[in-house]
């Protein structure tokens, strides 16, 4: 019962957001940014929250998705959606190759190398010809499926469905046998290894799956905005991707989606003139972590349980009097 609750609330929340955005282009744009972040954060959820492996090259995977769409369209004349299909496997391959090269690393050692990789990747994107160099690739056509051009709302709707489906899938995965094995590998790798699943291989799979999901975030953003450049997914994105699940609550992948919504609201939608979005986000991370240890979802869960108890007591008492 209670395991279903976040799923129901998450789907409901996404539906409400779509209704709220309606045909407003600004709100749609907010929503696309939120979904972009959410996808990157969901990508990070698999290796980071479940497997506990601190891979920090998430800006590179998002950028891979973005460039897959942009390069495919600009150089090969693909439709945008084809790029979106190609992005996940390409990002997964990059992640697995990087993961294999750093196979012996764990914890902060892995974090250090992957962070350096993320920085070098940005540099690489700016130096290659096929990526359009530092000015990147602009002026991509609109999304079109063999002639049908979805409206911005329809595009947003598709992105919402994609994100929702992924969050649901990750939640199921988390509770599945596979999820149990990978969560155990975070705490007691030796126990998993001696039970027959190689933790290094497991981590590679997690890194690949996470990169594939994150690349969808980059692909979505570029599809919607029609442009990409090396700085589009900067190192900042990595830190946001680490923050978002924690803000929302790491107990559930929906926490990452909720965290993305909160971050986007605070940085872009709160109307305090010229205020710093970064300041608002980091302050709220601090407040949330100190006040609601299990993130907003965890807090909501406790509150809901508390509320239910209160409600039942009240109704019982009401029935008696």
């Amino acid at each position, binding site marked *: 019962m209670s395991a279903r609750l976040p799923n129901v609330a998450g789907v409901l929340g996404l539906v409400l957001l779509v209704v709220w955005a309606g045909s407003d282009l600004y709100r749609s744009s907010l929503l696309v940014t939120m979904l972009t972040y959410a996808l990157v954060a969901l990508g990070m959820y698999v290796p980071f929250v479940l497997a506990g492996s601190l891979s920090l090259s998430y800006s590179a995977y998002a950028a891979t998705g973005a460039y897959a769409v942009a390069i495919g369209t600009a150089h090969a004349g693909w439709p945008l959606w084809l790029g979106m299909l190609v992005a996940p496997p390409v990002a997964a391959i990059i992640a697995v190759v990087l993961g294999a090269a750093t196979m012996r690393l764990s914890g902060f050692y892995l974090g250090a190398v992957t962070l350096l990789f993320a920085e070098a990747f940005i540099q690489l994107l700016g130096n290659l010809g096929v990526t359009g160099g530092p*000015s990147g690739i602009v002026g991509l056509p609109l999304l079109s499926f063999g002639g049908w051009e979805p409206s911005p709302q329809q595009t947003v709707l598709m992105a919402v469905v994609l994100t929702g489906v992924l969050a649901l899938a990750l939640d199921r995965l988390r509770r599945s046998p596979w999820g149990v094995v990978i969560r155990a590998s975070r705490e007691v790798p030796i126990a998993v290894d001696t039970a027959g699943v190689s933790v290094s291989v497991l981590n590679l799979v997690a890194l690949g799956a996470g990169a594939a999901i994150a690349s969808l975030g980059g692909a979505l953003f570029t599809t919607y905005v029609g442009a990409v450049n*090396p700085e589009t997914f900067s190192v900042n994105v990595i830190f946001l991707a680490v923050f978002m699940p924690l803000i929302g609550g790491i107990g559930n992948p929906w926490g990452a989606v909720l965290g993305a919504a909160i971050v986007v609201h605070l940085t872009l939608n709160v109307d305090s003139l010229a205020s710093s979005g970064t300041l608002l986000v980091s302050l709220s991370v601090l407040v949330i972590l100190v006040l609601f240890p299990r993130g907003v979802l965890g807090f909501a869960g406790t509150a809901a349980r508390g509320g239910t108890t209160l409600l039942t007591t009240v109704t019982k008492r009401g029935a008696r009097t």
Partner: protein
Amino acid sequence: GSSGDDDNGDTVVIGLVCDTTGPGAGYATPACTATKETIDQVNADGGIDGKKVKVVQGNDESDPTKTPTVIQKLVSQGADALLMLTSSAGVLQAKSLIERTKIPVFMPVAANPQVTEPPSNTYLYQLGTPTSDWATVYCAAFDSLGAKKVAFLQDSSPSQVQFNKGLIDSLDCVDLDVVNGAIDATDLSAEVAKIKNAGPDAVLVATQNANFDVLAQNTLHQQLPGVPRFTELLLSSLPSAWAQAQPGALEGLVGLAGTTDTNTRTVEVAQFFAETEGADFRVNNFWTQSYDAVQILKQAIEESGTTDGEKLNAAIQEVTGFVASSGYPGFTLSFGDDKHLGADGICGLVLVEWDKDNQVAGPWSGYEPDCAA
């Protein structure tokens, strides 16, 4: 661009994207202040065509993933035109969006010419001077020193490398030795040692990052004393950065600047800003170019009598010979269908020299372009 609910026909709405808290805050903050003060003055003088100017503002913290949304927000608030005081990377990210949104966008202080190059540049304008003009000025300066072999020290960030490409191509007057340094380097000794080994007649530091520039000047001053040094446009506009240099490290450095007080327009504009900014105020091209951007927009709206994006854009492309408040007297800005960089000729560029107190002493005596108008 008259879709928002606030736009009821008797106001002109200008959207302002200022990076006041991110990596661009150093230059965006003064430029943003200048823009708002200019708009206040326009309003005090009766507005544009009798309509008050209303400012809507956003902050993208120079983060390209945020820029498109911030632009959409301002557009949804009814912006008829945008002034973007943020990084080129953010605007590059939003180019396609701007093309679809169809409202004119000025980047008053941006120095990266890729922004206004095709594709998707129909609505984008810059006031800065093209790097080919910089090359003309540098070549003349090198010539006056008799420098044949010049070391070119640039930060290796992709955008800077791209930015300098045109400049390097145009600097064919000298034998150029290009040396790259990491943009966030904590040390440039290795780069300077390479330069020293090559034995150049002069060094040109080419970066849009003030920290890199100061670190380079400190190191060059220490290790290549006596070799003439040049820098690009940014440093002259950032007095706070001069203070970062070690004592005497900037002495003799020659840099590009955007203003000179021989230009009476500049002096007038400086006096205007000094009224609110106080007596210590020192003008530079962040202020004058922001000022001019507002004036050009005003002129275009008045000429076209509309705030409709496409018509306004056409009117901007009609602006020619606008007398700028920066550069040498008589320096003008013009725009056209295929001219999105405003500067007409090299007279927007002034070479200045630093003194032993690390202060800009005034125009460099070595070379001055012929701009007697």
